[in-house]
Structures are given as structure tokens and as C-alpha cells.
């Protein structure tokens, strides 16, 4: 719509140079011989005569007739054309970003469809839950104990620890002793170590029908497995991705932004990708049919974004991926402990996306549309970073360089979807606070808005760094540390709610 408006303004542009073109009317000098006809119907209303819609009697005291600007040189025209092109490109990127952000809310029905089903059914599948842990002594014990008591009749928890990490191994073994028959420990002796290798090692030992992945610091809802189980049965899915939510919005400005990224990603955007049958999966609360993932050869041990990679690979093979989100049962996590480690994490993901793009599995996607989508999606972190940077640059350019009004308006075009995105994020923050029971203060909104541009710069920096690393062939794994913030203070999940969740869901169904 906005684009349409700008185009209207642009219509004026091509003719800017054209002078008033007199229309030669043949003037045969023959006097008019027709007599003036009198109005033949006296009952008629007269023309509504003195209509003064345009009548300032005093307002006008300024020059007349807009002067047409000086003629543009070929270079200037080329420059303007480039500016317009970049503008339209940025607008396209910003508009898709907003559209994907809003995917879940596009109709009330679609929002309902993103959730778990409301029908309670008996558990039918068995689960193996993998928890890779590296230098996670602080959080792993609690996590394993919590996982061991999930509400499901048939599951096992497999903690994967490195052979060079005795501290974590000791914690894992202690948890296994506390929860015999539920928790097992697998030691990964691969060198060098990374997440996909650890997962592949554990995959050999899985006994369940379904393999699920969690992180060492995850806080998992007790009812989650039952809901996932139903989801597999109802939909016949090969893969089910559950929701993951970063919770510590009050920690810092970038933590707030990071939390909102997760919120929109799992709440909304992943559903779009699932519908498009091309999905980069998340790193945890993701469940696969064991047979399927074994058949696919497990995770790619060389990829820095193995979660994304496996999603792309399985999508390409035609696996059915279902995403289900309910705020109540989303797995709760925390942001990385420092901006630097978020930076490293983001670099790793971006580099992982690049690797997936290079690996080219997506080329096997059946339709051209899907392939195009894949290319676009995998390049998205870079496009987004570019957009974020270009917008202020073009703003400065416009306000300092003299360009024709129409061109200037066009340059403002990408700002429109960007601002819509900001409004949506603001609405999303309020929504986030409501569904997670967190009080959102005015300063949180201020942080969100003021953090927009710095965060864009940050994302752009991570994008650039990932490109540099990939070009250098540096594929080393930079691990993200966690400090267990989400388990302390206000954001901790109230334990009794675990018991109320299913009645809760059925209540909603009744409503």
C-alpha cells in the first residue's frame, strides 16, 4: 500500500521536464453558427454555483508555479536509479521480515493452529531426550533432575559429556544415580568436540521412538512430552519443534532485544517456515523420529548450525515438520551472559547458515519456489544486517544531498515497514509480558525502541564477522556460557502451574 502511494507520487516524475504542451486545436476561422440554447427545463436546479473549496482569501503570499528543477546528468540519473533500486530491495527485505514476524497472528484461526491440540490423548510413543553438556557443572544437575520427572510414562534422559570434562561428568553421573532407569550418561571422546558430534554419539544409544534435544540449562515444562507425543500421533509428523523462550528481559537492553527475537521466532516465524516446507530447526525442544534421523545419518558434525542444517536436510528429503507453540509449555532459557558471548553465538549461527547455503542440500528441494525461499532465508541474516545499516545511511544521504522530491520519497520507503516492525515489536513486548506474567515497565519499552539501532549494528557486525571467518576457513566452535539467571528471581516458573496446565488447555477448548 505504501509502495502504491509512492508510485503515485512518482507518476509526477517522468514528466517533470516536459513543458506545457499546447494542444493544437484546428482553428478554422468560421464563426459559430449554432444559436445559444436556453436551458430547456426550468425546474432544474441551477449549477451549485459559488463553490469555494479552494478559496483562501489571504493565505497565499508565496511564489507561484513550482519551478522545474535543473536537468539531471546521466550520472545523477544512474545514481538515482541505484538509490531507487536499493530502496526497493530494502523495502522488500523489511516487508518480508515484518510479514514473517506477524505470521502467527494473521488470522485468529491461524493463531489457534500454531498451538498444541486441545484434545488429551494417551501417550503412545517412547522418548530419548539428549542433553549435551560441556562445562555446565552449575546447571546440568538441576536440569537432569527436572527432566527425569517429566509427566510421561516412557522416556529416558541421556546426558552427553566430554571425556575431558570430569566436573560435568561427575554431576551427570550423580544425577544418573539419583534417577536410576531414567538418566544415563554417554561420554563423547571425539576431538575436537562440538555439539553435533556429541549428539551423534548419543544417537547410537537411543532406545526411544522419538529423539528429543535439550540444552543443559533448559527449563522444560512437565507436560511437554505428553503434548509432543499427541502432536506426533495427530499430525503424523516426522519432526516436531516446540517453543523455546528466552526469559531474562530485565537483564540488559540487548537481552530484551534477544528475548523478543526468540519470541517472534518461535511464536510466529517458524510456523511460516514449516508451512513453506523449508525450515531451519531450533537447537532444542526439537523432536525427531529416531528412525528418520538415523537414516539421515544424524547431525552434520562439521556444521556450526547443526540444528539449522538438519532442518534443511530433512525438509529437502520431504520430512513433515510441525511447529507447536504454547507460551505455557515453551522451554525457558536465558540469553548468553555477555554481549560478547551473544556476539560469538550469533557469529556461529550466521556462519552456520552460510555453511548450509554453501553445502547446497537445499538445491534438491522439489520446487523452484522452495529453492528461492531457501536461498533467501539462508541469506536473511546478511540481508537484515544490511537493511539495518542502510536505513540510517540513506536517511543521512537524503537529508544532506539534494535529490528530487519523488526520489527522496522513494528512499523513505524502506523505513515504513521498518517502523511497522517496531510497532509490532512494541505490541509483542506487551504480549510477551502478558503471556509470561512478567511486568513490562515503561523503561522496557524505551529500551526496546532505543535498542533498535544499536542492535542492528550489533547484528551487522556479527554478520560481517561470520563472513570473514567463513572466508578464512575458520570453523572452530565458540561455545556460549550460561549463568542460570532464568531460574532465579521473578522469571522462574511457578511450580504449581505444572499441575494446572492440562485442565487449563481443556478449559480454553471449552471456551
Amino acid at each position, binding site marked *: *500500500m*505504501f509502495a502504491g*502511494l509512492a508510485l*503515485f*507520487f512518482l507518476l*509526477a*516524475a517522468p*514528466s*517533470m521536464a516536459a513543458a*506545457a504542451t*499546447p*494542444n493544437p*486545436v484546428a*482553428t478554422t*476561422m468560421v*464563426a*459559430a453558427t449554432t*444559436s*445559444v440554447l*436556453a*436551458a*430547456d*427545463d426550468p*425546474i*432544474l*436546479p*441551477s*449549477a*451549485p*454555483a*459559488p463553490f469555494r*473549496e*479552494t478559496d*483562501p*482569501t489571504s*493565505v*497565499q*503570499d*508565496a*511564489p*507561484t*508555479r*513550482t519551478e*522545474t528543477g535543473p536537468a539531471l546528468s546521466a550520472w545523477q540519473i544512474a545514481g538515482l536509479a541505484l538509490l531507487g533500486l536499493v530502496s526497493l530491495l530494502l523495502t522488500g527485505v523489511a516487508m518480508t521480515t515484518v510479514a514473517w514476524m*506477524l505470521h502467527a*497472528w*494473521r*488470522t*485468529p*484461526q491461524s493463531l489457534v493452529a500454531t498451538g498444541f491440540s486441545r484434545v488429551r490423548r494417551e501417550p503412545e510413543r517412547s522418548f530419548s531426550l539428549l542433553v549435551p553438556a560441556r562445562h555446565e557443572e552449575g546447571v546440568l544437575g538441576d536440569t537432569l533432575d527436572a527432566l527425569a520427572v517429566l509427566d510421561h510414562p516412557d522416556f529416558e534422559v541421556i546426558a552427553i559429556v566430554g571425556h575431558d570434562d570430569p566436573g560435568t561428568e561427575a554431576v551427570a553421573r550423580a544425577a544418573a544415580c539419583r534417577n536410576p532407569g531414567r538418566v544415563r550418561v554417554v561420554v563423547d571422546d571425539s576431538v575436537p568436540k562440538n555439539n553435533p558430534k556429541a549428539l551423534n554419539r548419543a544417537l547410537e544409544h537411543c532406545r526411544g521412538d522419538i529423539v528429543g534435544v535439550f540444552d543443559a540449562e533448559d527449563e522444560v515444562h512437565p507436560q511437554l512430552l505428553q503434548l509432543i507425543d499427541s502432536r506426533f500421533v495427530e499430525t503424523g509428523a516426522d519432526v516436531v519443534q516446540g517453543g523455546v523462550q528466552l526469559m531474562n528481559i530485565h537483564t540488559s537492553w540487548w537481552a530484551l532485544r534477544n528475548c523478543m527475537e526468540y519470541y517472534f521466532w518461535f511464536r510466529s516465524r517458524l510456523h511460516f517456515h514449516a508451512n513453506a516446507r523449508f525450515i531451519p530447526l531450533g537447537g532444542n525442544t526439537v523432536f525427531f523420529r529416531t528412525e528418520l534421523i538415523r537414516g539421515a545419518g544424524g547431525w552434520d558434525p562439521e556444521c556450526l548450525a547443526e540444528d539449522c542444517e538438519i532442518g534443511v536436510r530433512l525438509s529437502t528429503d520431504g520430512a513433515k515438520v510441525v511447529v507447536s507453540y504454547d507460551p505455557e509449555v515453551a522451554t525457558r532459557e536465558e540469553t548468553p551472559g555477555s554481549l560478547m558471548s551473544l556476539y560469538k553465538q550469533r557469529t556461529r549461527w550466521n556462519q552456520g547458515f552460510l555453511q548450509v547455503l554453501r553445502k547446497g542440500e537445499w538445491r534438491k528441494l522439489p520446487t523452484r519456489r522452495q529453492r528461492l525461499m531457501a536461498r533467501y532465508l539462508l541469506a536473511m541474516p546478511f540481508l537484515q544486517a544490511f537493511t539495518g545499516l542502510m536505513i540510517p545511511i540513506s536517511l543521512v544521504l537524503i537529508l544532506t544531498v539534494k535529490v528530487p*522530491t519523488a526520489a*527522496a520519497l522513494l528512499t*523513505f520507503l524502506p523505513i515504513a515497514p521498518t*517502523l*511497522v516492525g517496531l510497532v*509490532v515489536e*512494541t*505490541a*509483542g513486548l506487551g*504480549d510477551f509480558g502478558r503471556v509470561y506474567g512478567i511486568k513490562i515497565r515503561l523503561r522496557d519499552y524505551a529500551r526496546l525502541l532505543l535498542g533498535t539501532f544499536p542492535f542492528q549494528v550489533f547484528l551487522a557486525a556479527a554478520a560481517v564477522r561470520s563472513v570473514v571467518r567463513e572466508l578464512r576457513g575458520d570453523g572452530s566452535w565458540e561455545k556460549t556460557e550460561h549463568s542460570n539467571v532464568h531460574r532465579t528471581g521473578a522469571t522462574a516458573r511457578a511450580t504449581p502451574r505444572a499441575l494446572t496446565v492440562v485442565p487449563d488447555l481443556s478449559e480454553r477448548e471449552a471456551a
Partner: protein
Amino acid sequence: MATSTLERLALAALVEPPTEPGRIARLRSWSSRHRASLTWFAPVFVLAGVVQTVNMTGIPQRFDDEGTYVAQAFAVSDLGALTHYAYFYDHPPLGWIQMSAWFQLTGALSRYSSAVMAGREFMVMATLASAVLLFLLARRLRFSRPAAAAAVALFALSPLAVQFHRSVYLDNIATPWLLAAFVLALAPRRQLLAYAAAAAAFAVAVLSKETYLLFLPFLAWQLWRGADRTTRRYSLSVAAAVLTLVGGSYALLATLKGELLPGADRNSLWDGVTFQLVGRDASGSLFDVSSLSRVTFGQWWQLDPVFIVATPIAALVALRNRRLWPLAGALLFLVAFMLRPGYLPVPYVIALLPLGALLITGAVETSLRAARTRRSPLRRRTGIAVTTLLAVATAAVAAPIWFVQLRGLLRADLDRPTADAQAWIEQNVPTDQRLIVDDAMWVDLVRAGYDPDDVVWYYKVDTDPAVAALAPNGWSDYDYVITTDSLRTFPDGFPIVAETIDNATEVASFGTGDQRVQVLRVDPAGAQAADAARAAQQTAREAAGAELVQNTDLTFSSAARDLTAGGRVDGRALTTLPAAAGAVGQLTVADAPPVAGENDTELPRRQVLVSAVDGRPLAGDLDTAAQLADYLTSQPGAFAPASVELTNDGLLVTWSLVGTDGVLPVGTP
């Protein structure tokens, strides 16, 4: 007239190559699914198109505002500017930008002899679009198909609607966008995208005509109540953002042009807005009989009093139907707003037309439905009977008024004076002259070859310093003034325009009363000197005429003799005819007919009809006629006639309007 959308769809189905069975099948299934709606809607739609189009060039007489909007559209396409004079933010430009797009895409300007009529063609398109959207809106408000079709019929056929929908008003361009906004706001699946689109459509409506902003609270209400609790937060935020952004593009435009805030030597958005809100002269209270508001209201009332009375009553009745609350609320608010003593624009009524049409039919249907649900058969029957009776009675009162008014709207040619004046000017006023005109003629004269700087909208003569700069000597820098009712009755008057008129003589006049269009020629030496000069010329013509009727080479009919001897015949004729007779033979002068519209008391007759040479009628003697014509046209300078035309009655010789001065020796008075 372009074919209707429905017809085009049908045509498209016919001409579609058989290789695309999918599209045809889809069209078939679409039309079979909507057959019932089409059956009701199509006839009303066609009728609406016919009534709006037939005689749209005849009535109303084109007026100043129409010309202004058309000129602004023309400026967008042909002058590379938003307006034909400096844009001063009186209205947002999107309305005429749309019109300009229509002109450019369809070449409408070259389809009509007058640009205003091309603008009216765009009004037809806008009204037909509104008709479609109104039907959709009615259906989304759960109107039955007959009721929805009736709403469209009221909207398109009320004489009030026909007159105002034909006129080139920005409001007519805004209406379909407003209706689209409500249709989208009522999207049955409540899509977020529909909400965003509703906001965008509404923003376009407001950017087409700013008064439509009055609908904002009611659209917001509709959006709020229509939204689902679970998605409302997002759909409303997005809608608000889109509305603000699209609307904000206007402020952005002003900023980029450096015209956001007031400053020396520039127009600004700020000035424009304050002018519209507080600067305009109030039109007085509607309850004051002598107020301008009352005059405006009187124009509406004359066209369709029944519609005007029925609408607010219907709005109150329609409040029984919760679905109609936002629209009924909007109507009542707009009516209340109209009663305030401030400025009341004449086209204000346009925004009320679709609402009134919806609410009148809505009220009838709501009452009937309410009556049908009554338990007691007696009350049920009474309810139905009373409603039907009221509706029929209203229709009975309206019918004769509609008949008379519609007959006029379909038949009368009120624009004839303007069209004739226009043609006369283009034929007789050289293109190097400077004219003060009503905007209704501006584009046509510019397209006819006059320099845009030389065709001056009367309005700018006194108010625009740049225009004044082009005429440093004031009134004497202008050559002609073309006056219309709009110019003659302008309340505050303009000193320079008034002076110019005082120092000008009517040379031609077309039509009578309010419809009259006068062409005045400025007397450069001033009115007094001109009067004296005219008297002297009259004397000189009388002398020359008296001499001429004695000439034996010339035979006069009695009428021609009286005119000639009375000094009523142009000096160039008096001089040329005896010479021609000497060269070709004895001439019979049958008449000196007036040029249609020309001032017969102030100007001498500049046409002469020569019926025979040496007693042989020229109509049957082509050689002699050609010989005479050749002789005449080979005369030097001003003596050569502008045209020589062979008619059934003889050779009609016409000299130009200018050039008569100085051909006869003038004695000192």
C-alpha cells in the same frame, strides 16, 4: 463510456484463449457461486452507470472548483508540479494525483472537448467503484441481497447523489477508499492484512480529501469491535502504524519540499492546515436563514429533501442493529458536525451519501426483521405493516421529486454557455492575449495553445505575488476577462480583477442568469477613453455607411441597408465591399448577421452575407464565388477577412474580432 467491471469480466471470459481452461473454470465457478448477488447487483450497477453518465457533460454547468482539481491533475502530468499555481497545502494532493493517473493511463483528456468532462469521467469510475464496495459493505453488514441492492440504488440514483457524484470533487475520489476501508475492516476472517489494508485505504481516503478524517473514530471503533481478542493487539497496532505512516507521507512530502513550517516567501503545511481549521470564513449557522451554510444546504435540499430528512431518522432507527452502530454513529456525528457554526464545504454532503443509503435501507430491513421475530402474530403483522407503510409512503413522496430532478439531470444542457464561450474564445481571441479566467476553462485554454502564464485564474490575480509580478501594470496588463457566476459573485472581491472588469467592455455573452458566461475585452486606455473612441468610430461608420448605401455597385436588402446606414457594420466591410464590387461585379448584400453570442450593441457586425454578383446567386455559381473569395482574401492586412464561407444563402464573409480600429478615418469628437 467504459464497460462495467462485470461486463469486462464476462468479455474476458469470452475472448480468453481456450488454452487456459483454468481461468474460465474459475470465473464460471465464481459467477455461479455469486449468481444470486449478481442478479441483484448487476442491474442496479448498470443503471447507476447509465444515470451517472448520460448527459454528464450537460449538467451541472462546469464550475470553478471542478476546473481547479482538473487543472491540478493536468499540472501533475503535464507541468511536473502538484498544482498549476504554487501548492499551498489547501488539500492533500492524492485525489488529483489519482485523477492524473487516470488521465495518463486512459488518455481521458483527449476524449472530451473540456478537461472538466474528462474529470467527470473519472468521477463515474469512482462512483461505480463505490457502488461495488457499497454492495459488499452492505452484505458484510448482513443486509439481504435486495436490501444491499436498494442501498446501491439510493446511493447512485438520488438526484442529490447524481448531481454531486457527477461534479469533479475530491470527495468523490475519497469515497471508494472510505468504503473499502470499512469493507476490509469487516473482513469475515479478520485477517491482519485486511486490517492493514483498511488502514491504508482510509489513509488514501484522507489524503484524497482531508474532511474524511472525521470518520477516523468510527473506523477505529469498527476495527476494534471486529477484531478477535487473541489477535487484536497486533492487528490494531499494525493498522495504526500503517495509517500513521501513509498519512505521515504527506507531512514527509512537505518536509522534503522544505515547506513543513511557515516561513517568509513560502507556503507551508502548517499554514494550510491552520487555514482549513481556523482560517476559513465561517459559513454561519444552518439555522440562520441568510447564512452561506443555509445557501449550501438549500442546494442539497432542492435536489432531494426526502433523502435528507430520511437519513438522520434512519440512523436513529438503525441503532437497533448493533452491526450498524459505527456507521450510524458516523452519520449522526457528521450531521452534528454540520450544525456547528463553522465552515461548511458544499461537497460535505458527498460523505453522507453512502452512509444515508446504507442506513435508510438498513433501518427498513432492521425494522422488518425485528417485526418478524415478534411472538404474537398481531404484533408481528402490525410491525411489518407499519414499516412497509412508512417505507412506501416515503417512496411515494420521493418519487415525483426524483422524477422531475432526474429528468432534468438526464436532459438539460446547462453547460452550453460555457462550451459556447470556450469555443468562441478559441476561435476569436488570439493566443498571444492575456486572459483572466474561471478555472473551469484553464486547462482547455492552455491545451488550446495559450501560454499558461497568460491564462490567469482570477483567484490568483490578487492573491499570488508571482502572478502579480507578471502584471506590473495591474489591470492594463490583461487583455480579456471571462466572467462566470463564480467570479461575479465572489464575496470578498479582488481589487485588480474588479478594476479590470471596470475597464473592459463585454464583447460576447453566452447564456443567461447564473449560467451566463461573459467575455470582456480590456480597454487599454481605460473605460472613459474607450467610450469616447467607440462613439467616434460609430460616427465614422455611420458616415461611411450612408455613403455606401448610395453606391450603385452594391445592392442592399432592406435589413442590410438599415444596418449599414446605421453604422452597425464593421469598417473593414464598408471599405472592402465597394472595391470588390469594382473588381468582380455588382454585389447583392443580403445581410450583416451577428456572430452568435457577440455583443451587438457595443460591437459592429463583422460578418456580411453577399448573396449574388450581377444578380446571379452565388450559391449556384461556384466560379464567381471563388473569384470573389480570392479577391477578398488577397486584401492587405486587417482588410483580409478571417474566413470566407460559401453557404446556401451566399458567401459569408467574416472579419476577425480585432483589427477594426483605425480602418475608417475618425474625426475629433
